């Protein structure tokens, strides 16, 4: 067993993927000597050389667009977008090229590209550094969108993402980068990339979350036991495609679902979860699915972010609303 932070787990995963396959490249702004602004690529350039780990010019369309070309040539690029809010200059290349090349070519071309995006708030940052843009990608056919919530998942999911022949948008919960946990680096993962997982069992209501909010939900579940409430927590892990079978199964037992994310509510991933769960579990639901999310405003200045973001209390408030409906 090794104790690693999420940031270090991704680093270790990248390292292992690069060791395993010489075609894996790491590219982006400041990923080289600096090792990325979060040090997720720390030491990789030193160990794998400047051809495989390289600093790009400062332009996200260029990063994604050239990664496409590299992928067409047989490479497996891992692109780092420095912060969530800076993915949009590369958005056209992602939605019109990365997402569609396989489809366009009738299956002839594959783009095994991983786009890593540190995302989410709670770190006291300035504008554009705390956003949760996953909904923009989950709405895009052709992309697979995932987010990890624990060091072990971070380690395995990044490797699975790189090994995937489909393009993966890999959301990293930046405010959890430094959370540590023990896991066995050599024990093969129990789940494929696009699968969700029950991380706490319970019977009164179900919480579904991903990325940074998984921990918040787990804490809420612990706190709820004080009030005699038993909450089931599901880490969605994959946002597109969604893997909702475990959620359906849970909701059929609990009758109540609270879905939690930092992103704004309208058309956030929780909206799709709510719609599908309602479609599948209509007669099991005792209350409408409750969405505990960011509000429909731009991400606010840091000094009010704690009120914008769902926290333990807001999650429990959501649970109460579901239970007392």
């Amino acid at each position, binding site marked *: 067993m090794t104790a690693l932070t999420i940031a270090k787990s991704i680093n270790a995963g990248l390292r292992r993927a690069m060791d395993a396959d010489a075609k894996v490249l790491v590219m982006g702004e400041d990923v080289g000597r600096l090792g990325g602004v979060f040090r997720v690529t720390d030491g990789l350039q030193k160990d794998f050389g400047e*051809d495989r780990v390289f600093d790009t010019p400062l332009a996200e*369309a260029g990063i994604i*667009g050239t990664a*496409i070309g590299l992928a067409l040539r047989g490479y497996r690029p891992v692109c780092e977008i420095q912060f969530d809010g800076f993915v949009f*200059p590369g958005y056209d290349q992602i939605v019109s090229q990365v997402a569609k090349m396989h*489809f366009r070519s*009738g299956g002839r071309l594959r783009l095994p590209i991983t786009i890593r995006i540190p995302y989410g708030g709670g770190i006291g940052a300035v504008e554009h550094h705390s956003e949760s843009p996953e909904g923009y990608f989950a709405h895009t056919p052709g992309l697979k969108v995932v987010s990890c919530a624990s060091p072990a998942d971070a380690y395995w999911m990044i490797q699975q993402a790189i090994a995937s022949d489909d393009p993966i948008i890999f959301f990293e919960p930046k405010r959890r980068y430094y959370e540590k946990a023990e896991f066995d680096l050599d024990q093969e993962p129990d789940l494929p990339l696009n699968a969700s997982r029950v991380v706490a069992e319970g019977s009164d209501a179900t919480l579904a979350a991903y990325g940074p909010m998984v921990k918040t939900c787990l804490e809420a579940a612990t706190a709820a036991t004080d009030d005699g409430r038993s909450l089931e927590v599901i880490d969605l892990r994959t946002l597109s495609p*969604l893997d909702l079978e475990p959620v359906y199964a849970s909701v059929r037992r609990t009758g109540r679902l609270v879905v939690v994310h930092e992103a704004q509510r309208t058309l956030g991933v929780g909206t799709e979860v709510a719609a599908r769960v309602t479609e599948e579990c209509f007669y099991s639901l005792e209350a409408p699915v409750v969405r505990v999310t960011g509000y429909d405003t731009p991400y606010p200045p840091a000094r009010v972010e704690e009120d914008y973001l769902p926290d333990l209390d807001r999650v429990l408030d959501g649970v109460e609303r579901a239970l007392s409906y």
Partner: protein
Amino acid sequence: MTVDTAVTSASGTAADTELVQLLTPEGERVPHEHYDTLIDDITADEIRDLYRDLTMSRRIDSEAIALQRQGELGLWASLLGQEAAQVGSARALRPQDHVFPTYREHGVAWCRGVDPAQLLGLFRGVDQGSWDPKENNFHLYTIVIGAQTLHATGYAMGVQRDGAIGTGDPERDAAVLAYFGDGATSQGDVNEAFIWAGVNNAPVVFFCQNNQWAISEPLERQTRVPLYRRAHGFGFPGLRVDGNDVLACLAVSREALQRARDGEGPSLIEAFTYRMGAHTTSDDASRYRLDSELESWRLKDPVERVKAYMTREKMADQAFFDGVEAEAEQLAEHLRTTCRSMPDPHPTTIFDHVYVDTPPTLRAQQEEMARYLDSFVDEKEAQ
């Protein structure tokens, strides 16, 4: 400010803009100290081949336009007038080179060995590019303006990493050729491609077919100075060539591609040409440009000038021209029959290649569609 006062004309003037030309519009061969050396190995046979390529390209185009008129295609983007730019540059390629086209490079596709009938599917609406890009090293058409220039640059960076430049092995060293239009030069993507190529010294040649128009917008809406100059500010060479002169296009492309293969980095070629037709079959060019402009460019026709040259130099007789004509007619017939027999895809196939690894949720939608379609069959059978 004292530095380089701007030239305020996108076409430039004779004084400041050298246009590489080896064949005049009248078909006279003009000597050029430097570029002659790049094509001095060209035999009469090869000239005839070029003429054949030009003619076939034009015939593909005219047949596709006809098919569009007959309702067999939804749209067609004509290359009329740009045959020399396409054939000249494409014939400078080696098999291992890779091409990233726009949506108008039918002549390049021809030279790369793509069956022209395969180009029709996209315009008919049965597929989005049915050829295998790896088979002829000819990528799919890209419709989002300029996006492919970054793909080309990235691909070239891959070629670099593969050690496939500068080895001196003519069958190994590879270059990448990216096509785009004058309008495309305004896109951020294209400028970022220049930056990446410059910084990485990537083996990519940017080939801009400046056909003077981006749909209805004349060149002046994209630039006030000649486009080839753009390259210098990004740190690589740029030049302008007579895009209606197949020999000049061949010469400058050979040089630029070899430069790339040798590891000397990118270059920009501005092929000065003209879009003789409308933007596409959906466009009505009479709304925005004068017939007189078209007339003046007709005198510079890229196919006619080679014919005149060959006739003047007695490289070909009527039998040759008739032969090519007959071959073109055959090709047209091939296009007609193939096109008409292209089946519509089955609707449920749209789910097959969204992902390499199709998720169960998408399979479920596929089944949903199949059940729904079947319900009509059932209904019909019930009646």
